[in-house]
């Protein structure tokens, strides 16, 4: 689905919206917007072949967890359009990027901006860590590492069904530390799941700090290629590079795009907090104010009123 706006413009708007939320709420998963804005903008605006949202533009409140008695239960997958033979299935793996996902849904017209007012509010489905019922989500990926396996299962089933649509996963590099990711790669390669592809936000960050200090995982591209998948490394802020990478032939192989990113891209002022960027919460009113002024300038907006 082609939006009227360019993906580059959507990426900027995603950063602005997440930043605004961060200032107003005194904290957010902000660096994730810096690193992934181009990827999510590109996915929703160009790369994914998905239908219009089939969900209300203002999300409904939490309506209970799945149970035999809960007939109302729905996941948030409908924001990514209906499930059908020709459309792609999209799995959003790093659930803590939820705010960035919601901002993206808003910027591509799949959710009303008012939906974000429900973020992290009691009784809301717009949860801080994306749940199955949160907009744009279809499963609980708060436990990192299960996304790729699930997508592989979907892709296998879709091959059996001879469906046209692909299955795509948006991932983050921290979860590559989980063994399950490599189990999923083994299986996807063995079963030649070329209808499966992933784009990984390689921001080299995890909760404790830079991955190189916490648990360095070395040359990921080499490892993934050695596992037998087609792995391409690109600049994760270069949308043209994404377009090219997606065109790479990968017959009989899953495609993994490593998008190398900067966790303070577009908000250079954030760099001073490096490497503690996993969740940005201001230490003082002074810091909040200063960040507001400096980063707003970088984003080309007036300071946020809060």
């Amino acid at each position, binding site marked *: 689905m082609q939006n009227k706006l360019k993906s580059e413009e959507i990426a900027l708007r995603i950063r602005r919206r997440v930043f605004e939320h961060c200032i107003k709420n005194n904290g957010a998963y902000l660096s994730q917007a810096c690193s992934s804005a181009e990827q999510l903008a590109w996915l929703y605006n160009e790369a994914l072949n998905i239908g219009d949202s089939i969900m209300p533009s203002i999300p409904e409140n939490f309506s209970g967890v799945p149970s035999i008695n809960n007939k109302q239960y729905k996941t948030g997958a409908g924001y990514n359009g209906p499930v059908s033979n020709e459309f792609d299935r999209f799995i959003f793996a790093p659930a803590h990027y939820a705010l960035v996902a919601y901002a993206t849904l808003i910027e591509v017209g799949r959710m009303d901006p008012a939906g974000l007012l429900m973020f992290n509010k009691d009784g809301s489905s717009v949860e801080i860590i994306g749940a199955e019922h949160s907009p744009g989500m*279809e499963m609980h990926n*708060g436990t990192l590492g299960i996304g790729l*396996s*699930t997508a592989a*299962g979907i892709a*296998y089933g879709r091959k059996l*069904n001879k469906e046209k649509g692909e299955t795509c996963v948006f991932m983050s590099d921290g979860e590559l530390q989980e063994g399950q990711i490599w189990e999923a790669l083994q299986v996807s390669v*063995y079963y030649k799941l070329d209808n499966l592809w992933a784009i990984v936000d390689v921001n080299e960050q995890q909760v404790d700090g830079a991955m190189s200090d916490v648990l360095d995982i070395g040359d990921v591209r080499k490892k993934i290629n050695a596992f037998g998948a087609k792995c391409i490394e690109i600049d994760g802020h270069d949308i043209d590079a994404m377009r090219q990478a997606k065109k790479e032939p990968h017959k009989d192989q899953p495609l993994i795009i490593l998008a190398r990113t900067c966790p303070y891209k577009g908000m250079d002022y954030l760099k001073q907090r490096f490497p503690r960027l996993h969740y940005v919460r201001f230490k003082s009113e002074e810091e909040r104010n200063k960040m507001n002024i400096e980063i707003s300038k970088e984003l080309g907006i007036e300071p946020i009123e809060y």
Partner: protein
Amino acid sequence: MIEIVKKPYSYTFKNYASKNEKILCLSGDLTSSCEVDEFRDEFPNQFVSMGMAEQNMMSFAGGLSMSGYIPFIHTFGVFTYRRPYDQLLASIAYPRRKIRIMGFLPGITTPAGMTHQAIEDISVMRTIPNMTVIETGDATEVESICEQANSVDGPVYCRILRGSVPRLFDTPLKIGDIRVLNSGTDLLLITSGICTEEALRARSVLIDAGISILHLHVHTFKPFNEEKILDLLTNVKLGVITMENHLVNGGLGTLIAEIISKHGLSKKLMKLGLNDTFAHGGSKQYLTKYYGFDAYTLIKSIEKFIGQPLNIEEKDLEKARIENVHSLSKAEAL
């Protein structure tokens, strides 16, 4: 004499799954160990080899379910919840995927020791929301397990018996039911899985010794038929003995204790099974005896329970024959 059925799961799964192309047979590198090798050879298109990678297998099965398939997962029971517990919850239990988990080697039914013996699976599985938990106790129950498991709108965990399995019952397993194997008024004896066969070895001798035993066989742990148990519990004089191929904490015995306390019943309860201990490798006969849930231990426990000697010796048990157990309702209808 009792009929011994060879590999009931093998033909049961083959007959059932081959009629529904949406069923996929997943195996975690234990295909012949879980008796689905013939199925693999005859229906390769419905077979998905997952290798030794249980975490992936659980989430992958979730994905298959999301694309319209019904995965039947085959591996040893322990491997379905110990390592991939997180995946079991997030990819299968929470979203109520229609995934049928076939767990082989329940309890001590393997000489392979601690790593292979699922001794806390019922305890774990029955506390997971949305999960249905079943245990087979004979060949007839194994023969009905695929159809019954697949009738559930949600995930199911099944303890499966393999190899040579005795036929004790002549009516199929029906989820949510409890089998009444013998009526009596003194003692309520509740058994499950392989323990029912053990209890049958002891029962006729006990009855000969003048004990009136109400004997139940439980195959569905969740949803549990509380009403039926409650009704039967209320009327026994001396109390309840449970015997299970599982830890006594968290399984059958605990389930009964929960019901007794919930309803404020004043009933003594003795729980036989693995008593807060891991087991080691050995034969079923040796292990049930060593850990105290074989037929003779049952008799000695009943002596203690009722506070009087029964004068039964172990050799008396050897003479005790196990006949096929007809359902009580059928016997009464005769």
